[in-house]
């Protein structure tokens, strides 16, 4: 009798504690690879360290922050990053919403085919992508330049190009004014599918009754879109935009591969993450690099806070 009670107690104990045991690996890894670097970087940002394990770290207070905030390169990188984030985010969401809306329409067939096609860029290897874009943006014989030079022979396009002061062949990755649009194009191409899938998931949670009621009331498709679809999508929109802001402020791969570690002509494609990388890993100021990472963190915090505020649902629930 007594044995049974103990057995029961043990059993109950394990049943209660087992879940914690099973989720513990994640937290163990998180402590080592997530939490530790976060706090170590904070510690590091108040020190001078050249990035060699054996050399000492010297406490220098807020000098790293002061140096970074007074560094013209930081401000240039910040400006580039914000412009790049805006130029690459807006098309992503407009296109993503549009595609999601179209795919979600009842009469559209082959939905899975379209979904797969749109999502494909997201999972394509970076190496293959950068090779294709190198061919696309090549100077002077790249595909886009071939297109532009051919179009220029038509009077209509000649006028447009003259008006825009474009003189093909264009140095897509060589002239400062074109670097950010070129990089944005690749980012938009890669992330549109991701946003489409997010919005599609959001669309499918909207009760069909709302649409039916609208149809009964004789609403036009744009009225349906702006009065029903968009407001119902607010939580998804909020999530997707915040993710874009976070991703945009940390953008590194695309500009690094397309214009190189110095950010191309006049550092037009030099982002905050590239500034951080070069400061730490090339110039050996690991303390400064850690300070930059914390400044970027503060910026991300502020910008995602703003974007959440702007897109907050009317009821205040998200």
């Amino acid at each position, binding site marked *: 009798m007594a044995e049974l009670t103990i057995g029961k107690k043990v059993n109950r104990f394990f049943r209660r504690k087992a879940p914690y045991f099973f989720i513990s690996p994640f937290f163990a890894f998180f402590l080592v690879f997530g939490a530790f670097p976060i706090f170590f970087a904070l510690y590091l940002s108040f020190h*001078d360290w*050249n*990035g*060699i*394990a*054996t*050399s000492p770290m010297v406490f220098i207070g807020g000098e790293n922050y002061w*140096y970074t905030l007074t*560094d*013209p*390169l930081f401000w240039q990188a910040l400006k580039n990053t914000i412009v790049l984030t805006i130029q690459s985010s807006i098309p992503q969401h407009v296109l993503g919403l549009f595609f999601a809306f179209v795919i979600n329409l009842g009469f559209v067939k082959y939905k899975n085919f379209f979904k797969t096609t749109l999502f494909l860029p997201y999972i394509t290897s970076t190496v293959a992508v950068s090779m294709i874009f*190198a*061919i696309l943006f*090549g*100077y*002077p*014989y*790249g595909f886009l330049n071939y297109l532009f030079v051919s179009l220029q022979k038509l009077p209509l396009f000649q006028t447009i190009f003259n008006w825009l002061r474009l003189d093909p062949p264009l*140095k897509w*990755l*060589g*002239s*400062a004014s074109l670097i950010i649009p070129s990089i944005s194009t690749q980012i938009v191409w890669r992330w549109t599918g991701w946003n489409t899938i997010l919005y599609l998931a959001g669309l499918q949670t909207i009760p069909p009754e709302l649409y039916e009621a609208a149809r009964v009331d004789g609403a036009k498709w744009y009225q349906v879109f702006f009065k029903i679809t968009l407001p119902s999508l607010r939580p998804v929109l909020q999530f997707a935009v915040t993710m874009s802001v976070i991703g945009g402020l940390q953008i590194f791969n695309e500009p690094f591969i397309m214009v190189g*570690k*110095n*950010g*191309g*002509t*006049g*550092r037009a494609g*030099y982002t905050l993450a590239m500034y951080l990388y*070069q400061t730490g*890993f*090339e*110039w*050996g*100021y*690991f303390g400064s690099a850690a300070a930059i990472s914390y400044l970027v963190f503060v910026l991300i915090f502020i910008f995602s806070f703003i974007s959440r505020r702007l897109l907050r649902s009317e009821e205040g629930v998200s």
Partner: protein
Amino acid sequence: MRKRGLFLLIMLFVVASLGLEAAPKTKIVVGCFPALDEAYAAVLPEFYKKYPQIEVEIKALGFDDHHSQLVTALAAGEGAPDVAAVEIGYVAQFVAEGGLVDLLKPPFNAGRYRDGVTPYTWAQGMSNDGRLIAMPADIAPGCAFYRRDVFAAHGINVDDIKTIEDLYEVGKKVSKDLDGDGKNDTWLISDASSIAWMIIRSAPELYFDEKGNCLVDSERFRLAFEWAKKFQDDGLAGGIAAWTNEWYVAFQTGTVAYEPSGAWLGGHLKNWMAPDTAGKWGVTEWPALRPGEDRMAGYWGGTFLAIPEQSKHKEEAWAFIEFITTNVNAQKTCFEVADCFPAWMAAWEDKLFEEKMDFFAGQQARLLWIDIAKRVPEVITNRFDSVANSVITSELGAVLQEGKPVERALRDAKTQIERRVRRGR
């Protein structure tokens, strides 16, 4: 009882033979990038003959990945190879950051090889406080590859290009607008920045003088930027970036007639960039900056071998480095396999370097490279070289692509560099 004795005897044998088998064999890891891995692998059989107790594992990563992985490993204090290849573009960075052993100290005593190594490249491996952080393995004498057929068609004799002014005049002849759209379709050079680099890299002072004063607003930099700008503005440069498809096409079709580069480009041209153009190429020295001066001689690449401080087998690592860098046969093998031009001067005596090269229409190009290598001045290195390099690269781009005035670009460059230097660490 007898059985047990036999059993013991056998056991004894087994243990003894295992013990012999496990004679101490030290394994070292050599971290490098292609095509060095092929070159070093080809040297290994001979290395093993001399050092049977050392086992070498060659680990190659992509060019950029190899170097960034090395930086990370040095910061982590673990994971670096015992021997690390460092390309010239990264040497300054490692001089500044540390983490590599001083090869002049015992037990390495690399100083005794000083006279055998090409002087300028030895200077590149030295820090300005007198440490040798990397041993020169191969060098890349700067030269220019030119199209014999294009020059002949325009009646140009390459020996007449004595100064950069002459080069500019030749450029005007070969850069032509073929389809009448107002833009040139053939050019002298692919990218105008190579004109500037030619001038910058052929002086004994790179970005700083001996006292550490920043020199980027000196007359030499002004000339370098202005000449590059002149080549660019007058349509003599194609604006084609290196390592792009357009670059290879330009070599295949001859739309670019003159390419300043390192000796290594010849191997790439012959093997994969433009193999069908064999016999149409020639190699020449760079022109002089001003009339009456000597021709410019500089470098365009080069590799060094270093030992990270964290290595546990430094002596074995040094044995490998010593073998690769100071053994004539090893240097020759590396050259034959992967076009690594020997830094060890004794290797130049070999018949191999007198060969008439078919790709260059029978020219004895290797003798020319040796001659250039001897003339490259010993450069003064500085721990802020990598910062300066990054700043100059982007300012040069702004001058060439955006029309930024040269004076302002150099002034901005100096401000940016001195801002880092003043910080002092």
